[in-house]
């Protein structure tokens, strides 16, 4: 592939900025017109066109879905919600914090108190104007005793939310956290009118209103007009069709029944490209697959068992065989290379049967001890990966029993319950956030039951300090701990792979989460 192609690919997958692209294109002696043509194709073209209906074939829906923002766990509701409601801040595709309903967040010296200015002149779909009370109420949805919110964990450190004036609130933290804005970007944290409870009939500041909603089947939204964000929400209507089955979802795309889809099956990418009329949207970041072991359940209480299994998987082979150039080998901690705080001095853990066998023997691991609960509901290829793992582990004399779990209800029945399973993490904008969500002893989603006072301390310190050097040492240390003793095998980081019909624009890569970090309805528009 020559430089020009490479550059185009880069542009399409958003790995280069617009200016960057034009510069290098010029350097390559490519006519500007042609270059901008490519950009247009890659969705960089500037002025969005209004109108049209976007049909999204989307996975991650379930009949148990509810509109209650505190209950979201997966793509469908995230995307639906961002089109009805707005958040406090938004993380852009450069992983920078952008103001949303909060125009500014000013920390005090030790980052324990944040004063935020509420955006003026924004109105809810019921006509009410946004004010500080709404912000307070919305934040409190995720706080306090017995909050079932998925964001309850990250929100714990918030001691209090105080209304200072009609459009100013103060957020008081128990412990310093310089990364609070990132915490507030959590997809659960959306703004509803003060006292709002009737989730069945949502009221929000978002650009769309809900027309139809069948949990686990579909959601239809229509543009309610006059959205406050510049150049966002350009579609007349958005239609989310839940298609959890990978094959079916891809068929729907290829058969032209949906314009946009995601979680593209790697093995189908050639096919899709060959079709010519589609564009793959590739984004590399924190999205990773993991095999969490509950460190408080035998035999995984024994670190030798964990190490044995960590050595027993052939990451290289899994990546090359299953995901080719769309994944990178992982090192048993959740911080991606793209993250400034990635610990790049840790030795990469390799497939090593001898070591694995050694640790297994040391732990006296029995033949029927290791049962891996796998389901493609975790990520497509989970079962295949488990089987590959099984094969390589067998070579190290470790017998892994793979138990196929039914896809539906996998997250309800298996996740956080099975002692050893297949799972994934969507990645977080800030390393501290990732570590807090999945490894802090108090986190409800601590899927390895990792419980280490030292670790929690380091995490707290890392959040507290604004001294980047200090932070780095803390975060590196936490990565080392997880790498050496953590309960999760993290074999690889996977690129987000979205796809859309070429007529769809504005559907650009975002490292955080697929479908424009769950804002596809806001960002995408259809070429006239």
């Amino acid at each position, binding site marked *: 592939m020559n430089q020009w192609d490479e550059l185009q690919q880069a542009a399409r997958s958003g790995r280069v900025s617009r200016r960057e692209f034009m510069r290098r294109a010029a350097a390559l002696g490519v006519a500007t017109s042609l270059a901008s043509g490519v950009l247009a194709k890659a969705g960089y073209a500037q002025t969005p066109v209004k109108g049209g209906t976007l049909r999204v*074939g989307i996975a991650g829906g379930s*009949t*148990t*879905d*509810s509109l209650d923002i505190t209950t979201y766990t997966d793509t469908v509701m995230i995307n639906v919600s961002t089109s009805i409601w707005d958040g406090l801040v938004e993380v852009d595709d450069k992983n920078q914090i952008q103001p949303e309903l909060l125009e500014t967040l000013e920390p005090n010296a030790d980052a324990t108190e944040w004063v935020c200015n509420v955006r003026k002149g924004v109105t809810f779909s019921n006509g009410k104007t946004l004010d500080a009370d709404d912000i307070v109420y919305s934040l409190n949805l995720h706080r306090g005793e017995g909050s079932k919110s998925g964001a309850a964990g990250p929100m714990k450190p918030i001691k209090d939310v105080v209304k200072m004036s009609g459009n100013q609130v103060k957020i008081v933290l128990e412990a310093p956290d310089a990364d609070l804005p990132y915490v507030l970007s959590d997809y659960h944290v959306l703004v509803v009118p003060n006292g709002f409870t009737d989730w069945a009939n949502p009221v929000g500041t978002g650009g769309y209103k809900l027309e*139809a909603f*069948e*949990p*686990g*089947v*579909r959601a239809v939204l229509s543009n309610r007009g006059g959205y406050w964000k510049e150049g966002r929400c350009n579609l007349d209507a958005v239609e989310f*069709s839940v*298609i959890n*089955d990978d094959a*079916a979802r891809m*068929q*729907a795309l*290829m*058969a*032209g*029944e949906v314009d946009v889809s995601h979680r593209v099956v790697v093995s189908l990418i050639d096919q899709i490209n060959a079709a010519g009329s589609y564009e793959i949207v590739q984004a590399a970041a924190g999205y990773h697959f993991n095999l969490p072991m509950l460190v408080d359940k035998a035999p995984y209480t024994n670190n030798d068992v964990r190490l044995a299994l960590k050595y027993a998987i052939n990451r290289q082979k899994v990546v090359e065989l299953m995901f080719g150039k769309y994944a990178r080998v992982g090192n048993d901690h959740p911080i991606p290379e793209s993250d400034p705080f990635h610990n790049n001095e840790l030795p990469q853990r390799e497939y090593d049967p001898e070591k694995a066998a050694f640790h297994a023997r040391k732990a006296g691991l029995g033949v029927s001890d290791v049962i891996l609960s796998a389901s493609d509901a975790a990520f497509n290829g989970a079962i295949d990966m488990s089987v590959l793992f099984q094969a390589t582990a067998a070579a190290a004399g470790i017998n892994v029993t793979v138990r196929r779990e*039914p*896809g*539906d*209800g996998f997250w*309800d*029945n298996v996740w*956080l*319950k099975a002692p050893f399973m297949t799972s994934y993490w969507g990645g977080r904008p800030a390393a501290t956030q990732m570590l807090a969500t999945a490894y802090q002893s108090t986190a*409800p989603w601590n899927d390895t039951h990792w419980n280490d006072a030292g670790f929690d301390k380091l995490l707290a310190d890392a959040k507290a300090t604004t001294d980047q050097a200090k932070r780095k040492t803390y975060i590196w240390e936490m990565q080392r701990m997880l790498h050496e003793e953590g309960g999760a095998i993290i074999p690889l980081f996977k690129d987000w792979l979205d796809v859309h019909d070429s007529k769809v624009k504005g559907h650009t890569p975002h490292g955080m989460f697929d479908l424009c970090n769950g804002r596809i309805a806001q960002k995408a528009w259809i070429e006239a």
Partner: protein
Amino acid sequence: MLKLLVQRLALGVATLLAVSVLIFWVTELLPGDLASNILGQSATPENIAAIRAELGLDRPAVERYTEWLGDAVQGDLGKSLANKRPVIDVIGPRLVNTLFLAIYAAVIAVPLSVLLGILAAIYRNSVFDKGVNIASLAAISMPEFFIGYFLILFMSVQLKWFPAIATIKPEQGFFQHLYVTFLPMLTLILVVIAHMMRMTRTSVLSVMSSPYVEMAVLKGIPKGRIVVHHALPNALAPIINVIAINLAYLIVGVVVVEAVFTFNGLGRLMVDAVAKRDIPVVQACGLIFAIVFIGLNLIADVLSILSNPRLRHPR
């Protein structure tokens, strides 16, 4: 004869009751005490007990059964454990979809298969007969997902004639629905036509070997009339039965097809519900399926009774 019909009806109701007991009992066997299933990690003996009480699991099964049945009879199937919505709301649309697809397929399949069966019987051992026979044999032998994927591969992915995803949307018009669900319908009728056609053929042929048909031949009656006028009326009962069985299949047995075409029918709902241990939904589905099953068989029974002259015109 009326007596006979009443007996059948009573029998049907009795069976239905028995089945409801069976369903209730079997679904309660679903493992993972559902209380702890709901509570997940935060399951402590106390609040498990609390939930059990809330769900009434502490009360004797008989009591809960009678209550459940009582409500069910009044159309209240309880609330889904998974998303707290009334089971009726969860099942309703799915049931409509399922019925739609079933009727769609039946309307085409039943007449066609009976016609083919009769023709095959008339031209027994002809090329046509042999051809139809082999074809139907193949159709019966193909797993549904095989047919389904094939249709998708060619008619959807390659030719783009029909959608691969059969999602019915209320805002679509009737014909739109027909179009969207064409492939699943095709898959289904390929299966059922084969069954019904073969049964029609064999039962007509078996009657063809009876003395009164020979007599008809000796009366110089043309073959066509013999089959239609002499054989068919006496072959009705088995045909009616196989039709009933296949209709039942179209309603309760299409999970695989639903999965292949991501069609939101009752079958997949039940599979999900079973996986989620959403017992009220499972029970409701089970009940509906049983009603369909027993109902259709009952109708078949009644019809074949009516088709029997001995019973229609007693001595």
